[in-house]
């Protein structure tokens, strides 16, 4: 359990000394009770260490946003969440709503996808910023406002003092996202969840926002979970990447590995579909077929119907995350995976985990982009 006196910022130091992961997610599942059950996230497990910047990549509907918002239990009431989420020794799934309010905003900061809808249109930026400080740092109205101005300035909003009394509609998209970031980092959270923070923004602004997130999180050794559908976004910022497909993590490794030695057929296909500056292309390469219907989970590997390296086993057995041996032995029949699984067993992605892939027949390593040639 965490210490009763929760000074902002001390959690990071404590956790670093404790030498365990800051965040530990085990068997997290999210099911939406819609007309039929939508299984958005299926038994996902991973660890995040203090100060890590980790990317969670996947296409729309892969469950990455649902899985991230479930960490702070911010999903609507019709979402059923199971599994454990342990932040700094506390299982968040067991907290009452009242206890959770002390964690939200304070230990977990969240940057949302759309800064046009995530800010309240009828409250000033200053008020929305100050209320976080008043809640979690117990500041009075005037002190909160003063600090809000500082914060707004520190995220790169010019004339921050004057702009506190502006309403969201008087801010541009990029400035709004800066304000949202200021709110998220205000109490120095241990974990920052950035849920597609650049998707709704102009391309020119995207790079600035990513740079700001990178700067703020490395400065305070904040752990960042950066969710995106854009491989280019994770390339510049994160050290580690987890790729999600149909509610599961299908590949996990260092960012460099995922870019240079992608080992899951889905990741390989994602790389192929990136436009390349060095190749003349008539059309963008797409992944054939459709993602599986989350209301009717099929047997076997969910990517199998679209997979070029599918084998018989894929249709019946859903592959768990497994290590890829450093010494690859390619045979005519593909990898000898039976021995690999027996040797290494099922693994959880974490700061020290090796390159993991959920595939019975991983293709030969393919890098879509060179390690250094990528820009966010």
């Amino acid at each position, binding site marked *: 359990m965490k210490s009763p006196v929760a000074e902002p910022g001390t959690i990071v130091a404590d956790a670093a000394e404790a030498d365990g992961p800051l965040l530990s997610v085990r068997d997290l599942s999210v099911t939406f009770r819609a007309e039929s059950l939508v299984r958005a996230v299926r038994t996902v497990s991973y660890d995040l260490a203090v100060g890590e910047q980790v990317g969670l990549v996947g296409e729309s509907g892969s469950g990455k946003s649902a899985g991230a*918002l479930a960490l*702070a239990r*911010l999903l*609507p009431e019709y979402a059923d969440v199971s599994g454990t989420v342990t932040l700094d020794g506390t299982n968040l799934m067991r907290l009452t*709503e009242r206890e*959770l*309010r*002390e*964690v*939200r*905003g*304070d230990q*977990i900061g*969240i940057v*949302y996808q*759309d800064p046009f*809808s*995530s*800010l*309240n*249109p*009828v*409250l*000033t930026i200053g008020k929305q910023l100050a*209320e*976080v400080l008043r*809640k*979690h740092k117990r500041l009075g109205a005037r002190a909160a406002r003063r600090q809000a101005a500082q914060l707004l300035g520190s995220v790169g909003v010019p004339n921050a003092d004057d702009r506190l009394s502006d*309403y969201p*509609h*008087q801010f541009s998209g990029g400035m709004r996202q800066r304000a*949202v970031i200021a*709110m998220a980092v205000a109490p120095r959270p241990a974990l920052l969840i950035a849920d597609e923070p650049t998707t709704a923004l102009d391309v020119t602004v995207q790079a600035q926002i990513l740079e700001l997130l990178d700067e703020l999180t490395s400065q305070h050794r904040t752990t960042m979970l950066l969710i995106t559908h854009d491989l280019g976004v994770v390339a510049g910022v994160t050290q580690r990447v987890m790729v999600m497909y149909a509610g599961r993590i299908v590949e996990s490794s260092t960012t460099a590995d995922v870019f240079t030695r992608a080992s899951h057929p889905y990741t390989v296909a994602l790389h192929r579909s990136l436009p390349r500056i060095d190749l003349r292309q008539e059309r963008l390469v797409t992944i054939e077929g459709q993602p599986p219907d989350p209301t009717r989970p099929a047997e076997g590997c969910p990517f199998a119907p679209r997979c070029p390296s599918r084998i018989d086993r894929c249709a019946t057995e859903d592959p768990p995350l497994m290590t890829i041996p450093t010494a690859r032995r390619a045979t005519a029949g593909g990898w000898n995976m039976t021995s690999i699984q027996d040797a290494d067993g099922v693994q959880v992605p974490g700061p020290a985990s090796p390159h993991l892939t959920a595939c019975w027949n991983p293709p030969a390593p393919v890098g879509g982009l060179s390690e250094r040639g990528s820009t966010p």
Partner: protein
Amino acid sequence: MRWFVLRRLALAPFVLLGMTCITFFVSQLIPVDPVAAYLGGRGAAQSDAAEQAIIDALNARWGWDKPIPERYWIYVTNLLQGDMGESSHSARAVSTDLANVVPPTIELVVAALLVAFVFGIPLGVFAAARRGGLWDTAFKVVSTLAISVPVFWLAIVGFTVFYGRLGWAAGPGQLDIFTRPPPEVTGMVTVDSILARQWDVLLDTLHHLAFPALVLGLVIGFYFARVVRSEMVDALESDYVRTARGKGLRRRLVLYRHALRNAVIPVITLSGLAFGSLLTGIIVVEHVVGWPGLGQYAFSAATRLDLNAIAGVVLVISLAYVLANLAVDLLYTVADPRVRDGLKS
């Protein structure tokens, strides 16, 4: 902002002039002879010389012997001098009558709107916060009943039960018959009794005010509550409410500061519209509880075909509408900063 208000106020006289034009000519189109109505049906039917003399005298007195356009001209020029003509059924100047009946109605309208806001908005928030639950379902049933029951029925049955049987409600009028009214300043008994520091009189008139204000206020309040509920349900599912929850704010702050501030904006529009149904309700309710206001006056003027009085009532109601709509537009600028900015440019 200031220009917006001034522009709206400058337009008001034209709206009112248009209203006088419509009421005047429509009342000319009514195929009933007001002189005959005044004389109780004997008038035009008989061509007795003595009767004819009375008819001519009345026509001359009210100016009915002149052609219609000239009569309108006289009417408007008199109106500009504050002269609304003479009421045939009270035999007083219409302006004097209105000065007597408008203040009690203002009291009733303000009290009813107060009840509607104070009761309706929290009720809507309450139901939305428990959406889908037992309380929400109970709210849906009760509010549907409340807004589908006709006001006259509610007023009559309510008055019979709460005054006639239980004796909780006060009797007819604004004050008990043994209570001496406070010295008249505004004509509103509540305000006048406060000005005169006659607290027992204030209590007495509030007791009389309570029943009609509750009947009118609850019906409108349930209307408000339903709109607030549905707007709140949308707001509670919005991204900005998720952001507020993600900050760890207390439930009350999320509900009232973040969700309600947005959900209440359409209620402002609705209260402008509710003003219309409030005025209709007032005619009925004032009649039932004997409230000496505009509603009763309008009722007796209409049943006696008192054209000058009707025109006066319509003019007052039009003025009230213009002011209510102006108030709605101003409230919008207070509630929604985006509207405020739209006005600047």
